[in-house]
């Protein structure tokens, strides 16, 4: 633990992704005069909003708009920013890190925010050109170039782009490419899209909505191998199907970058293990973001990570122990015109009471799962309003017995209905 009473403590942050960016904000909010802060990042840019990569790909926003912290920002804050540099090892005994360039940087306290990398798939020939992941601005840049090139040459093959992975990221990538005018096919290993967030019926509505946006789907299938000499020409699937394609995006999930920490002897399995205060097994080293493991869970969504940043900043700046809680987090999808919300449990079992609203024509499906008359899960597609409200009821464990028949119609109805005899109806109107 840093001793703030003496000289300035060297606080070294490895990684400059979204977690690091947010953590810096939390530190500055609390005052960093007691620290000498250094940030090392392997990307050239300052911290940017990775969530916005799909809108960038889709052309709905541009690169400058998503860069939260340009280089000048670090200067202005008196923070040393080391960009385009990767850390190779932590030398805990000496309290320093070794960069790939062979430099050593000392620290009094080290924060690992090294994030994650795209998960690998078992397909053969992944080394071919035009096979991308969808993780960084560089990925997006290359995809945009390829798409632009493609636009100039017109389309002749069955499909232009193959996207692998029917999770949030894969869907967003597919949507972005489709919006660029490419013919996109998305292949997904599971029988339905977003199988970690949606039930099969909701996924069916989603599929229909995306098909309307010119995306084709291959479900329950996987790429066995890519073919081509240098450049990607086609993909062969486990089902035996064959699809020619010019580019491929692999978005099958993420793998925590745990190696740096674990190689230094920090505890951990799926990621670098932390306790509720973001401390690793070494008291001089903390960790947060997608590289950590907390009680066996890893993280891929921003909400819990924001909380981790708060917890760690409180501890380092104020010595306040505010425990991090891994609460359920709602899922949203950033595809224009496709409203989706999922929180908590999403697969109906015999133990649930299930309330379902279906409007086939309008493409609206809303499902609430109740246990003991309390919401334990919400899946909304087509109309995701009220998602937050359901989510609050879920976290508050509100008894919804009385309002159950009106719940799915939205706030206006169940809130009106809660006080049917209220005298200020005119106000409501």
């Amino acid at each position: 633990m840093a001793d703030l009473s003496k000289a300035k403590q060297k606080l070294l942050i490895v990684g400059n992704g979204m977690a690091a960016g947010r953590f810096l904000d939390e530190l500055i909010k609390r005052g960093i005069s007691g620290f000498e802060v250094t940030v090392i990042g392997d990307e050239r840019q300052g911290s940017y909003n990775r969530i916005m990569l799909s809108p960038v790909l889709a052309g709905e926003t541009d690169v400058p708009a998503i860069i939260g912290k340009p280089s000048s920002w670090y200067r202005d804050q008196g923070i040393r920013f080391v960009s385009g540099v990767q850390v190779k090892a932590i030398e805990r005994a000496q309290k320093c890190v070794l960069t790939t360039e062979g430099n050593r940087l000392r620290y009094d306290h080290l924060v690992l925010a090294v994030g994650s990398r795209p998960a690998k798939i078992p397909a053969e020939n992944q080394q071919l050109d035009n096979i991308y992941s969808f993780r960084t601005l560089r990925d997006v840049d290359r995809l945009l170039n390829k798409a632009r090139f493609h636009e100039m040459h017109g389309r002749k093959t069955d499909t232009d782009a193959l996207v692998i992975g029917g999770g949030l990221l894969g869907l967003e990538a597919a949507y972005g490419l489709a919006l660029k005018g490419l013919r996109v096919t998305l292949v997904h290993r599971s029988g339905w899209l977003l199988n970690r967030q949606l039930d099969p019926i909701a996924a069916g509505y989603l599929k229909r909505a995306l098909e309307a946006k010119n995306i084709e789907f291959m479900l329950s299938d996987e790429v066995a191998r890519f073919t081509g000499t240098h450049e990607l020409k086609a993909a062969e699937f486990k089902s035996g199907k064959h699809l020619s394609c010019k580019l491929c995006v692999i978005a099958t999930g993420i793998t925590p970058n745990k190696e740096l920490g674990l190689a230094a002897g920090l505890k951990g399995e799926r990621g670098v293990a932390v306790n509720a205060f973001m401390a690793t097994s070494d008291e001089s080293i903390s960790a947060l973001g997608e590289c950590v493991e907390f009680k066996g869970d890893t993280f891929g969504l921003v909400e819990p990570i924001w909380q981790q940043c708060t917890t760690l900043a409180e501890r380092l700046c104020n010595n306040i122990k505010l425990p991090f809680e891994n609460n359920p987090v709602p899922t949203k999808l950033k595809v224009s015109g496709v409203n989706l919300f999922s929180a908590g449990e999403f697969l109906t079992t015999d133990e649930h009471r299930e309330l379902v609203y279906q409007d086939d024509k309008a493409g609206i499906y809303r499902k609430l799962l109740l246990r003991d008359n309390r919401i334990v899960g919400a899946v909304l597609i087509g109309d995701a309003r009220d998602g937050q409200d359901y989510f609050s009821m879920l976290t508050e464990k509100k008894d919804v017995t009385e309002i159950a028949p009106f719940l799915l119609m939205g706030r206006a109805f169940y809130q009106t209905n809660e006080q049917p005899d209220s005298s200020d109806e005119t106000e409501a109107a």
Partner: protein
Amino acid sequence: MNLPEKLIASDTVNTTCCYCGVGCGVTAAVADNQVVAVAGDNQHPANKGRLCIKGSSLHETQSSPDRLLSPMLHGKPVDWDTALDYGAAKFRDIIEQHGPDAVAFYLSGQLLTEDYYVANKLMKGFVGTANIDTNSRLCMASAVVAHKRAFGSDAVPGCYEDLEQTDVLIMVGSNTAYAHPVVYQRIAKAKEERPDMKIVVLDPRRTATCEIADIHLPLRPGTDAYFFNGLLTYLADHNGIDQDFVDTHTNGFDDSLAAARGQVPDITAAAHLCQLERADVEKVYQLFAQNDKVVTVFSQGVNQSSSGVDKGNALINCHLASGKIGKPGATPFSITGQPNAMGGREVGGLANQLAAHMGFDKPEDIHRVEQFWQAPNMARKEGLKAVDMFRAIEEGKIKAVWIMATNPAVTMPEAGRVRKALEKCDLVMVSDCIGNTDTAKLADLVLPATTWSEKHGTVTNSERCISLQKGFLNAPGEARHDWEIICQFAQKLGYGEHFSYSHQVDIFREHAALSGLDNNHSRGFNISALEEIDKKDYENFAPLRWPVTDQSPEGTDRLFTDGRFYTPDGRARFIPIEARLPVNTPAADQVILNTGRIRDQWHTMSRTGTAAKLLGHVDEPYIDIHPEDIERFGLIEGDLAVLANQGQRYFGRVKKSADQREGEVFVPMHWNGKYAASSCADALVNAVVDPICGQPEFKHSPVRISPFKQAWNGFLVCADDITPACEYWAKITLDGGYKFRLADGECPDNWASWVKNQFPHIDDWVDVCDSGQQFFRAAGFTGGRLQVVFSAATDKTSAREMRWLEQQLGQEIDANTRFAILAGIPGGGVEDEGAMVCSCYQVGQNTIAKAIKGGCASVEALGEKLKCGTNCGSCIPELKALLR
């Protein structure tokens, strides 16, 4: 009354209302062969400009979706010749093989006098049977015989003015407020102008009529004759007898008094027998004895009884004994149910009458009519009265029946049995304007008849007033007038030359001529002064009360003013009465079923049921029941209960009502298979009849009552008329569609498919399912317009109705509003106006309650603020109740 604007702007016609026996004059505005507005006829003596809610909605019940447009033989349209050939051939065959008594006509007080006349003539003079009866049997038969026994003729002595001019008005078994609203309004106004006028209501129920009563006597059902026997004794003991009148103008007083005294010797006995407070009885007896001007109005509460004739005579005895008859403001007054019940009696349209107040009991009458008609096959004995007629059909003795303008499968006692009898009958012919009444559905041959505003002819109301029901619209499709159909049928039977009328006036003249033939004051009905009425005068017939003779060409307001009656010796007859209780008494686990009208419906709803406005007041079959009985039978107010009797069930919503006596329930008589799954009250009524007149005891049937154990309930609002696949449903007409209330003892496997299967043409659905089965909701659309809303729930709270929702039917609904449709409430939380009270101005109970809270302390104040009660006034009793 101010005429609606439309009425001033368009062509207007004066006619007569087709509903109750009040017989109000109606001014109708006509445009493009449509009635566009109606108002009360200011000149008509019956209503002087007033109309009730049913009457003022006449233009809204014009176009029925079920209007019959062509003859239908075994469900297929055929031309008239084919239809009538078929019917006539069957009739001929059956008569040849089994004799004329194997065929029958069953008619209706809805028919016009001219229709009635030719039907009666055909059967009794040419077919050769008196098997012709009418639904007036269910309504007026007791009064007819009581009149004949006492006065020598079926004649109501007074007129409506007597009800206004009297000092004491006693209403017996008559809920005038609902059944004769305009007469009730006249009485209420008279009472307002002369608050000293006393009004007494004798009725086991505290009805809406009691709102204006000084005294209500909730007597034990069926004890009316005890009450009047007691009165006769009282009059004798308290100087209440007009000895001069008795001596000069009556016979048989002593025997009648002895019979009365023997049974009811004093007030205490009367109070005991009728289960009333002695002081109340005494008060009413005093009022009767001490006032010269007393009118006793009696209606179905007296008539629909196994001793209805005796009840009528018991009360007439009191009027004769005290000389309170034939004077302004002093008369017994039988008030009829139907628009032309009296007209039917005039032509002899009942099995025990002949024609023009002649009967089978006098051979000279039979001979006279035979001669007059030149009848080849004159009937010489009475035919079968309604209940016996349908029994004979059941037994196969009657093999062909022609039913006109009535719905016996709903209205007869043991209606379920009547239904089965008709199913078996060789030939069932039905003439009606509606093609799918419960009865028409059982018919082999259905003939399309004209209806109000198309048909043309005369009717006679309760006060002997003949008026013209005018035909001023062209009939749609193939519809024909009833008299034309009957005459064409007569022609097919080979009697064409005797039925070759070219116009209604020809029939009317013949009828008038017969009424005067050898009359010499022997028969009350005499309109001989009209036997040569010219066509123009007939077309502009001004209302007239019969007799209309050379001596009284302007008609006669009151009969017996000179103390002369229609008996051979000119004296009225006292009838000794041995009062009797109803035949069937309830077992320990039974209640007494009483049936009757509600305010806004008429008979089996085939007309009034098509107007949303008229279903606003009472929209569902119900059961009025005393709070103690609710406890006793484990019922819950607002839930469904089931009445059961003779294998039939009546479903109704439980209404807690301290207006009922304990052990007695009241249900409306109107619902039938077109409007509810199983809520036909008359199916439960015992077929017990008065031995003299054959009128059934509709007011007293023991039935079992139990709560309906529903697994789910709900409602369905839809544009199409369907028959929901559900144990209980009740249909409520809306503007632009229907609402069904639903309940069932079992949940369907899947509510979504349950509702969708019933609307196979709809494929755009939105629904909310609950795996917990607490509720289900769905809405269906065609072209974005709302066609169906269904809401089901296994508890009572979830399926809530809202008028807003009903108003969305047929509207284009955007995706967002679909949520509101399923919620059943508008997004902004608009206040619902609640149950309809004022049907005219569509003012609901919540709105009224709010106005009362806001300071409206009287009916007038409410009227000023909300207009409620200011048109037809039928809701005023309810407004008063809300104000209390």
